[in-house]
């Protein structure tokens, strides 16, 4: 019986949270439409103006429906998004959903490995820094955090390429795999690490792993800098908690107090932090991909920006907007599930 109100309230929370997410989605979509369609005029002329004859331009504009009133186009845009149709790129006639699936997988692989690096670095340095507040260890940890935060991801990438690729020759500095591997490997999931495992191709796996080390570590370190700060502050706060004093008063060893009482509680908010870092992660991914020639969705976005392909840009940006809302929704639900106090 005791479990009944609990589950009901979680469901209520989930529904309320979902209802609150909808206006945000609507506002983001409207902003994307206003930015991408109203500001520049019609996408076909923007991308192809001056490159194809005027009649052909007009033909393509009409075929795509850009001669109709904006409000009609707006509702059509919303309708297409509801059917998960993000349009077709102008310059190379690729459906944007395909761009998202293929290049998005490369970005997903990069960001997941980067997140592992970030959590490893952020949690360990943050815990040590917080535990030994104001000692040289803490100052070193904080300084490391600040320096990492202050270093643009492409500068770290540049240094990594010089040191580990040029001088030491340990890792390749660009791409996802060497030509042989990308030619041989079947890529059903487009996550090359997984694909290599499925194919039981050990050499390919090593090759792919070598390619991902530098970009993922670079991106991971930058995100890790944020984790360091937050974990440290959390440790400081939990160490001041009454229950820590109580645990000490009960005569528990310092080791038990710190590991079982302080650190565990200091790490719960990290879930939320991961959610908040998604924006940083995506932005960082765009830069990392440019630095390491990683064929992810960020590289594609920049390519389409340079080609002034407004439909592709609009599609990719819309996808990012939906992704961000979806992730923050999931994070909030996980939080509500872990910590009942969060619920409305």
């Amino acid at each position, binding site marked *: 019986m005791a479990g009944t109100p609990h589950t009901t309230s979680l469901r209520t929370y989930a529904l309320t949270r979902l209802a609150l997410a909808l206006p945000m989605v609507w*506002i983001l979509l409207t902003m994307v439409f206003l930015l991408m369609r109203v500001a520049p005029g019609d996408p076909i002329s923007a991308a192809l103006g001056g490159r194809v004859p005027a009649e052909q331009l007009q033909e393509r504009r009409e075929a795509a429906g850009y001669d109709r009133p904006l409000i009609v186009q707006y509702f059509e845009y919303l309708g297409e998004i509801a059917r998960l149709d993000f349009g077709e790129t102008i310059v190379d006639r690729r459906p944007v959903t395909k761009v998202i699936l293929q290049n998005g997988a490369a970005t997903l692989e990069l960001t997941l490995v980067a997140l592992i690096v970030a959590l490893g670095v952020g949690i360990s340095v943050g815990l040590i820094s917080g535990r030994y507040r104001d000692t040289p260890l803490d100052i070193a940890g904080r300084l490391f955090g600040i320096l990492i935060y202050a270093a*643009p991801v492409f500068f770290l990438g*540049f*240094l990594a390429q010089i040191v580990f690729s040029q001088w030491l020759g340990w890792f390749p500095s660009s791409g996802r795999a060497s030509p042989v591997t990308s030619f041989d490997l079947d890529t059903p999931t487009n996550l090359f690490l997984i694909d290599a495992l499925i194919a039981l191709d050990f050499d390919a796996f090593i090759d792919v792993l070598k390619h991902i080390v530098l970009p993922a570590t670079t991106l991971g370190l930058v995100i890790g800098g944020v984790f360091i700060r937050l974990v440290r502050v959390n440790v400081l706060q939990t160490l001041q908690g009454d229950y820590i004093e109580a645990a000490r008063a009960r005569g528990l060893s310092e080791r038990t107090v710190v590991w079982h009482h302080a650190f565990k509680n200091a790490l719960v908010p990290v879930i939320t932090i991961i959610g908040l870092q998604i924006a940083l992660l995506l*932005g960082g991914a*765009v*830069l990392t991909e*440019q*630095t390491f020639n990683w064929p992810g969705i960020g590289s594609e*976005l920049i390519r389409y920006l340079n080609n002034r392909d407004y439909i592709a840009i609009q599609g990719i940006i819309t996808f990012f907007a939906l992704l961000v809302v979806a992730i923050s929704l999931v994070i909030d639900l996980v939080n509500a599930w872990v910590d009942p106090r969060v619920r409305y």
Partner: protein
Amino acid sequence: MLGGRFLAPIREARGVPLWVLWAGIVITLVFIVLALFAPMISPYDFDEYRTGTGERFGKQQHPSADHPFGTNVLGTDVLARVIFGARTALEVVILAVFFSLAVGLPLGLVSGYYGGRLDRLLVLIMDSLFAFPYLLLAIVVAFLLSDKIGRGVFTAAVAISVVYIPQYFRVVRNHVISVREESYVEAARALGAKPRTVIGRYVLQNVIQNVPVIATLNAADAILTLAALGFLGYGIQPTDAAEWGYDLQRAISDAGAGIWWTGLFPGMAIVTLVTGLTLLGEGLNDVLNPVLRRRPIQAVILPERQSRLPADQVGV
């Protein structure tokens, strides 16, 4: 007297926070000096590629006596570009912080003070902007603006401020909401002060205390955003000014040839300036924020007793 009150927390600061603050002040000042006096300090102009006698510097030359940081792929002096880059960075960041404050602060004040439907709408819009990956937002705005008015300091500053407006809005609004219910604000209202006066005199004065810390930390972040825009090719037109992010973009292709000086120095400049601003912001926060402030325990000085009896007379 006023200065004394505002500076009191800084004078009371001891230990780590004070060092952090001073390190931040010194680093930031160095860059401000570089920016202001760039033409005097720098050996060459940022786009100069030959000596007075018309001899070219040469491309991608190793650091030497003539070019302490070497030359880059365009054949210009890297040191000159690093020094002039400070000027660009400060120009853009000051403009960006000003724009974001000019929009974010009034919106936050009004939204927080009046509440209601306007507040809900603004919060929703700002939250949506805030949730969106900030770099992508800046890129898209810079892309659209560069189509209309070209790339330059103004475009970069607007693109960056779009990112920070929601942050100022949030902080200011939330603070206003907590201040709004304070008794001195209520008293002012009860005395018949107009909303303008209440907001301007009582609420703003209180809220504005947060601004230096946020502005400094945002300035640090803005340097990174500017560099990122430059790196992606949506920053400042390279012929107009020197910009560190753009230089790093050009340096990435140098890395394959083992050329390190074209990227190392602009990168170091970014790291140092961002670190300086972060230290300054953190130091200010540690020193000004009463919750984090650790005051030194003041020695208690007891007044000396007027007359002390010699020990042997005690109890006589």
